[in-house]
């Protein structure tokens, strides 16, 4: 609710501007409604540049994420990384994961004529996994890259990881088919595509600076694969 108060604060700050004309300009914040240094992180205006995208831009970036072998994503988003894509892709993923997972267990229980109850923990668990993954892993990567003196902007990393999760949406939708082998194949392909996307785009960036790039790139590749496997195991392992 901090966001609420500070949005309202922004609104009222503009109101206060019109009412309190400074006598001799003695009031410090009356000209710019931005406030002092650290407080800026809580205003909306500080994040607006990361949402400066049109519908066509977003669709372009989504299509780009489906072709992992091109490796051109980072160039395209270097000047205008957006946070809209990552946030809403994660949210959509949570919804799709929860609904598909619920549907799969429902069908499995009904086929065996067993009792079924809606498991609300699916929603909370998948929210934790997806939001946590997209927030924590880029942060750690940012720190590691800085240590190895190949700095990348934090927002670019968020953007990269967010769009890399997009391929899981069709994969989850396809996993409704009740064949175990088919589900493993889908999970494998999606994980591989997503991991290659992240790895190739990062490699293009850090290849220029530094020794250990191979280690880092393989590390994140494996991490993304691990995510795919965890998803498959948790959401689609049905014990009836």
């Amino acid at each position, binding site marked *: 609710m901090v*966001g609420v108060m500070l*949005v309202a604060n922004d609104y009222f700050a503009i109101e206060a501007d019109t009412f309190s004309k400074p006598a001799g300009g003695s009031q410090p914040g009356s000209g710019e409604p931005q406030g002092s240094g650290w407080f800026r992180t809580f205003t*909306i205006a500080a*994040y607006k540049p990361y949402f400066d995208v049109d*519908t066509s831009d977003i669709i372009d970036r989504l299509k780009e994420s489906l072709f992992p072998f091109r490796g051109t994503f980072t160039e395209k988003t270097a000047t205008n990384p957006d946070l809209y894509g990552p946030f809403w892709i994660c*949210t*959509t993923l949570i919804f799709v994961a929860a609904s598909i997972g619920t549907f799969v267990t429902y069908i499995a229980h009904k086929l065996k004529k067993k009792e079924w109850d809606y498991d609300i923990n699916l*929603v909370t668990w998948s929210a934790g996994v997806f939001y946590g993954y997209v927030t924590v892993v880029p942060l750690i990567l940012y720190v590691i890259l800085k240590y190895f003196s190949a700095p990348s902007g934090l927002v670019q990393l968020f953007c990269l990881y967010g769009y890399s999760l997009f391929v899981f949406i069709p994969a989850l939708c396809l996993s409704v088919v009740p064949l175990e082998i088919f589900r493993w194949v889908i999970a494998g392909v999606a994980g591989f595509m997503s991991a290659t996307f992240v790895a190739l785009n990062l490699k293009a960036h850090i290849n220029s600076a530094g020794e250990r790039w191979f280690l880092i790139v393989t590390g994140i590749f494996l991490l993304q694969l691990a995510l795919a496997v965890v998803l498959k195991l948790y959401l689609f392992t049905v014990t009836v």
Partner: protein
Amino acid sequence: MSISHSDTIPLRPSNSQSDIDEIRSLIDDSVHSGPAVVLPARHPATTPPPSSSPFISSNIPPPPPVSSSSSLQKLQSVPAAPPPPPPVGNSSSIVANGFGPPPNTLTEPVLDTVKRDLWRIVSNLKLVVFPNPFREDPGKALRDWDLWGPFFFIVFLGVALSWSASVKKSQVFAVAFALLAAGAVILTLNVLLLGGHIIFFQSLSLLGYCLFPLDVGALICMLKDNVVAKVIIVCLALAWSSWAAYPFMSSAVNPNRKALALYPVLLMYLSVGFLIIAID
């Protein structure tokens, strides 16, 4: 007559009642005593010198001699207002008079307040959920927004879902309430970040009112337990909710970003609809 009358009016101590109240009570007195007390208009230059009897026109009786010059200025600005209709003795009537403090909603009966709020909720609901493209005043719902309606609808949806759940009832209510409340806030922030122009609480209010069709759907699903029927009802309710929310959301942003603002609304209503179907 009235001048001598005013001469015998005892001076009230000025600190116990404001000057405006004085004038108001005098108007009350004069009206109750009869409308025959009328002062002919007088030009200030021809009135006898005392600064304490200012110029007042038409059928308003002169105020008592005032002590401060600021109230003198107030009184001189007072004649510019048209004479008010005689105030009725009932304090609960809403009379728009140019004099005195605004109608006192603190002293009206509670039933009046509740009726007024309920009436506002109903009228906002009609404007938001049954949009009529030919209505005279399209912006009315936006101006008269309130938060009681949305609060009631969100709680009702949570209670309906919690009622139909067979296990973990309180957890279901918590998730539904948090999803709807946080969802409304996030949707509004999304529009603001995309460069749209809406007022924060107005948008919360509208999104809350657009939940009404889903409320109806949840109520029907609570009573009827067939899965196929539930799916159909929820789909209809979903379509209605989205159709109601579409004009407000799409007009708030740049046309290039319309889909970016609308997609999250659709997602939120879809997830609520899914919760309604899944809880049994």
